[in-house]
Structure formats: C-alpha cells, structure tokens
C-alpha cells in the first residue's frame, strides 16, 4: 500500500513550484481513468511519498489496470488543472480467502502539495462507485498497522476492522 505521508520540508527552490501548485490546487478536481501520459507524474508522486522511484512497477500496474473499461479493475487519477494530484488502484476479487466477491483498494496516494483538500476521499468514493457498478457491496484494504496516517484516513471514511487477520512467519531458521 502506498502511503500518505507528511509533505517534504519546504525549500527556497520549491517556492516557485509551490506558487504554481497553489494555482493548480485552486482548479476543480476531476477524477478520471489513468492515461499513459500520467505515468511520469504518478511515479514522481510515489517517489515523493515513499522515497523510492519505481518506474517498472507503475508501468506494470498501468498495463494491468489502466486503459480498459472494466469496472472490476480500476486505476483512477485525480487531476487538478493539468497536474495529477493523486491516484487510486483497486479491483474486485472473487472468493479470495473464502470471501464472496469484494472490492480491494491496494494503492492510494495523494501528492503532499494537494493534501487536506478531500482528494483522497474523492478518489476512494470514485473507486467505491466503480465497485458498486461491478456488483459488489463491500470494499477492503490492507496496510501496515504503524501507518497511522493512512489508517486514520480510511477510518475517517467509515472503514472498520474486517473479519480477517493477516498472518506471517519468517521462512529462514
């Protein structure tokens, strides 16, 4: 799960960029399907948030989730002005872990410059609407329990602990 993290420390070099961003942030936000040309901005947002640049990973996600019209697989972006302000990815999975079909959100990111503007909530709302159109009535996600920021975000949207418990063990030793 890509994380929502605190914005990076302000720098003088970033002043001009922040002015431009403020103008973009004032633009109406549109939620739409991802396009190939969004990928560089998506990679940049993810790199800002996670500290890792993962071009191949995002290209692979685009090829699996982008560019089709199926409600079961969703890769959506929030666009403000001409900038990608955030994205969400998820899909409907059938009978995994013995569960009837349900929607899974497995990545959500908002550019730190666009936080506190309800964009994460709109992205989640949009993907939930797609899941409903696909015929499911439940949405789930999974994230690290020390990721309190994004846990708080999902809880603020009405999510509660589900009936599953993730388990793991070390395979060496």
């Amino acid at each position, binding site marked *: 799960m890509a994380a929502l993290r605190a914005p990076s420390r302000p720098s003088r070099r970033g002043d001009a960029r922040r002015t431009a961003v403020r103008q973009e942030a004032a633009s109406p936000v549109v939620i739409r399907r991802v396009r190939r040309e969004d990928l560089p901005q998506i990679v940049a947002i993810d790199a800002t948030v996670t500290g890792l640049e993962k071009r191949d990973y995002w290209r692979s996600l685009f090829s699996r989730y982008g560019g089709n019209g199926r409600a079961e697989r969703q890769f959506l972006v929030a666009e403000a002005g001409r900038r990608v302000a955030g994205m969400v990815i998820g899909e409907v999975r059938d009978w995994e872990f013995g569960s009837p079909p349900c929607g899974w959100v497995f990545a959500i990111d908002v550019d730190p410059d666009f936080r506190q503007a309800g964009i994460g909530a709109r992205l989640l709302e949009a993907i939930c609407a797609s899941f409903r159109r696909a015929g499911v009535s439940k949405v789930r996600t999974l994230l690290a*329990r020390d990721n309190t920021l994004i846990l*708080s975000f999902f809880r603020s949207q009405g999510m509660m602990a589900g009936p599953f418990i993730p388990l793991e063990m070390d395979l060496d030793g």
Partner: protein
Amino acid sequence: MRGVKLQKNTYLALYSVLEFAADPERHVSAAEIADKYGVSSHHLAKVLSELARAGIVESVRGAGGGYRFAGNVRRLTLMDVIQTFEELGLPDGGRREAGELTPVGLALGVVLSEIDEIAKATFSSITLATMLRLIERQQRVVARRSPARAKSAAARERPNSR
C-alpha cells in the same frame, strides 16, 4: 463493556472529551457530564483537570463556566487521550505477574503483546472526528430500532442540544 479493559479514569476522560468535542464552543460543567454518565463529580473533576493539564480541554471561569474542548478533532486520537491516563499493555503499577518469566509465561506474553499492538494501532488510528461520526451512526441505529426510546433520549439530551 467488551474489548480491551481500560482504567476507569480513562473511560471518564474519553466520555468527557467526546462530549466536549461534539460542541467545541459550548462550556460544559463537570456536574453535567457526571450526571449523564452516572459518576461522581468529585472524581470527574480530577480527570478533567488532568485533561486540562494535557491541553485537551481548557477551563472556563465565571458564570456559565466549566470546560471546553481545546484540541483539533481531526488530529487528536483516542490513543492521545488514553496515554494521558495509562500506558496500554502494562499491568497495574508495572508489577510483574507470577510465572511471567517462565517459558509458558513468556509464550503467553507474546500472544498478549500481539493483542496490545493491534489495540494500540486501532486507538491511534481513530480521531475524535471519526468517533463523532461513529456516535452519530449509533444514534441513527438506536432511532431505527426504537423510535420511542430515541425520542425520549433526545428529550433528555435537550439541555445539551447542539
């Protein structure tokens, strides 16, 4: 009450903070909260003064005085309130249980720590704003199940109406 066992003062603090946070502008007296939750005003006063020391509420002097909320409902979590009164996962007074250092005691400790970690993550991820929404949802559930009871509860709440 189900779930993790919190100390009595912690419960009182959570009840009080949620009352204040529901209407941050209103001054609420200790007696009003004590009456609503059936606890002693004297005991509650100690809890409120601890919350004031932590900067979560502030006391308001004079006529119509009492306490009011001083935090940010979107930032303050249940864990922030709980930690003002107790440290989750530590037995009362920090004392060790008999047998705690035996292999059986240590194995039980691993399981109990797992439960504590999940409880901490849950409390840390629920802001007061999220709790206020949950409370509203519970009020709607009660109203659907028993409209008459909800009506009489609303009448009882009227002096605190927001």
